[in-house]
């Protein structure tokens, strides 16, 4: 009857699809995370110079964008090549909302996020049903259309065409001035907190029922429908969520850099984020964030050697060949291997 008791466990919040940690271990892990978060938020400002902080800021921003891509990839099996169009698009919206609609910075943020959400919902409603490859190309197309639209002559008064827009705001936003966001040391705790918040949110969604439903749908959409599931809504929700993350990331970026240009909408940035996601590993929240930081530091190092592109190409090849499940995945495998060996010796 043992088997019966075990199998009677109801399907609780998708937890059955992931190995659950025991209670005490969970508390320990939570405490460690809190500690890491607190140290990470403040220590770098005292330890690192402006230059390193700037790189780290940029790396985490790229990492958040990568996380948005990785989330869709690992949960829904969909690769989005349009993440940058939302990331950059939000910057334009923010600027236009302030300069053309005369909104306060806070209202401009809200307005641009609302627009992004609506956009993602409409686009998603159209394309989420297609095949994975078609989805990838459709996000590419939507993204490219946006980055071309920014260049359209008719919109030049709003977007300044190819020259890009300098974005700044007067007054304060959340008690901070424009200069505070531009200051890499003061921006660090903001982006660090955002990364943790978004990372945790993604982690929670992965473990939730939504995550379980998404993963199962990815494997066999038809059987999901024949098991009574709506397969459209959850995937649409995931798409919108991914875009909201990209949008939030874009807002942080525009606040930090004070500038948006057509390049920040382009395919190049989306590919960088995708590569970052794969470098870090798409299966976790920490992976893409770490991947973004690695990518940013690597690019800087490569730039100093005068061979950004060549070394980037090499790095993509080497990382992907050597680390099939990303850096975080590889680290996990390694830790598990050690753990197993230790247990074997002990037992």
């Amino acid at each position, binding site marked *: 009857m043992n088997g019966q008791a075990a199998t009677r466990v109801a399907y609780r919040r998708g937890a059955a699809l992931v190995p659950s940690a025991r209670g005490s271990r969970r508390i320990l892990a939570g405490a460690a995370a809190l500690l890491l978060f607190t140290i990470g938020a403040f220590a770098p400002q005292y330890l690192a*110079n*402006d*230059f390193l902080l*700037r*790189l780290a800021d*940029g790396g985490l921003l790229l990492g958040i964008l990568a996380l948005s891509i990785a989330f869709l990839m690992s949960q829904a099996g969909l690769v989005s090549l349009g993440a940058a169009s939302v990331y950059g698009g939000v910057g334009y919206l923010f600027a236009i909302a302030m300069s053309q609609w005369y909104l306060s910075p806070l209202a401009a943020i809200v307005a641009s996020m609302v627009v992004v959400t609506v956009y993602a919902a409409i686009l998603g409603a159209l394309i989420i049903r297609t095949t994975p490859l078609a989805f990838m190309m459709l996000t590419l197309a939507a993204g490219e259309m946006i980055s071309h639209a920014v*260049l359209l*002559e008719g919109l*030049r008064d709003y977007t*300044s*065409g*190819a*020259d*890009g827009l*300098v974005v700044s705001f007067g007054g304060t936003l959340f008690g901070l001035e424009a200069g505070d966001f*531009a*200051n890499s040391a003061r921006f660090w705790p903001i982006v660090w907190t955002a990364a943790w918040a978004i990372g945790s949110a993604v982690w929670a969604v992965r473990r939730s029922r939504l995550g379980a439903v998404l993963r199962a749908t990815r494997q066999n959409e038809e059987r999901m429908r024949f098991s009574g599931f709506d397969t459209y809504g959850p995937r649409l929700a995931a798409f919108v969520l991914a875009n909201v993350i990209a949008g939030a990331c874009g807002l942080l*970026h525009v606040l930090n*850099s*004070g*500038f948006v*240009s*057509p*390049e*920040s909408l*382009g395919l*190049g*940035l989306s590919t960088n984020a995708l590569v970052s996601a794969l470098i870090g590993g798409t299966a976790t929240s920490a992976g893409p964030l770490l991947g973004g930081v690695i990518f*940013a530091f690597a*690019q*800087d190092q*490569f*730039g*100093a*050697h*005068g*061979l*950004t*592109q*060549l070394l980037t190409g090499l790095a993509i090849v080497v990382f992907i060949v050597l680390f099939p499940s990303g850096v975080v995945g590889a680290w996990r495998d390694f830790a598990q291997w050690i753990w197993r060996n230790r247990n074997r010796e002990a037992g």
Partner: protein
Amino acid sequence: EDTIKIGALLIDAGPLAGLKESQTKAINLAIEQINAAGGAAGKKLEPVFITYAGTPDTAVDGATRAVQKDGALFLTGMDTSAVSPALSAKLGSLNALMVEVFAQADPLTGKGCNPNYFRANVNDSMLMNAVGDFLKDKPIKSWDIIAVDYSSGRDAAQKFQALVKSQGATVGKLLFAPSGTADFGAKISELGANPSEGLYVTIFGSDAINLAKQQAQFGLFAKYKMVIGNSFVIPQVLPAMGDAALDVYQTLGFVPGEPGAQADAFVKAYKERYNGEQPAYTSADQYAAIQLMAAAINKANSTDVAAVRAAMSGLTADTVLGPAEVRAADHQTARPIVMNQIVKGPDGRAAYEIKKVFTGSEVMAPVDPACKM
């Protein structure tokens, strides 16, 4: 610090990547020669090369590295009209100076001017004024325009339209081609069906080569009395265009053969150093920019940013381009500009023939009142 570091930003992705090498060559030559002559304020110059992907974000990252990690005082090198505003806005907080040699957009030394930002190359309005001056006595009464569908192309087309109208000519067709157009066949047919007397072309890079080669197969330029290029037949694309570009008129900041002892010496030294290669105008601009930096440091006799900035505003110096003056009010450099025509050179290859040299003051627009330092 015993050397003066110069941060050179170079693009190694996208269509501009190909120019990285010639830019590097110019920088190395200028610094070697200036150092051989004693450097600046008693110190040697040293380049810090940083490559980046050509986007504003990566440019700012690279600049930050050059200044904060490598200790560069000056920034220069390759950037576009989209990159420079972002860099320019960052200069204050980086506490560094920048001497532009690439971006031509007027606002950089106009309404978007910045105390730490200087420009050694010509801007769009200088090029346009040179064209206007050149066309004054030409009997072309109607023009067609083909331009890239991009901010710069739109602007140039609009300004040219205003220019010829002010000179009493009319504009017939006004066509725009998206950047990245591979096949110009349709545009060529459209223009060729009913051509005006003159054609003004603002198409850049590989699109320019495509247009030139494809029009030659259709015989389009031959149907016009005069074809004027704007950044169309530049030295980087001339070999690829070859005979297809013959007879086109083209303004450039500099061409080998430009009068002046320094210019001659520069072309000679460049050829010697780099296997007989001719310097492009971008190389000359880059060389001159470094000359201006050295002159300013000498004048200030210090490497303090504020002192050098003050010295560079209003600086006059003799450069490989000829006499140059950095206008104090907007930091745009007044320097010569050349109108050329593409002809068959002595070796049978297409080459530039200087038609007219304009001095900086002849073609420079007045200071934009919107520029507030």
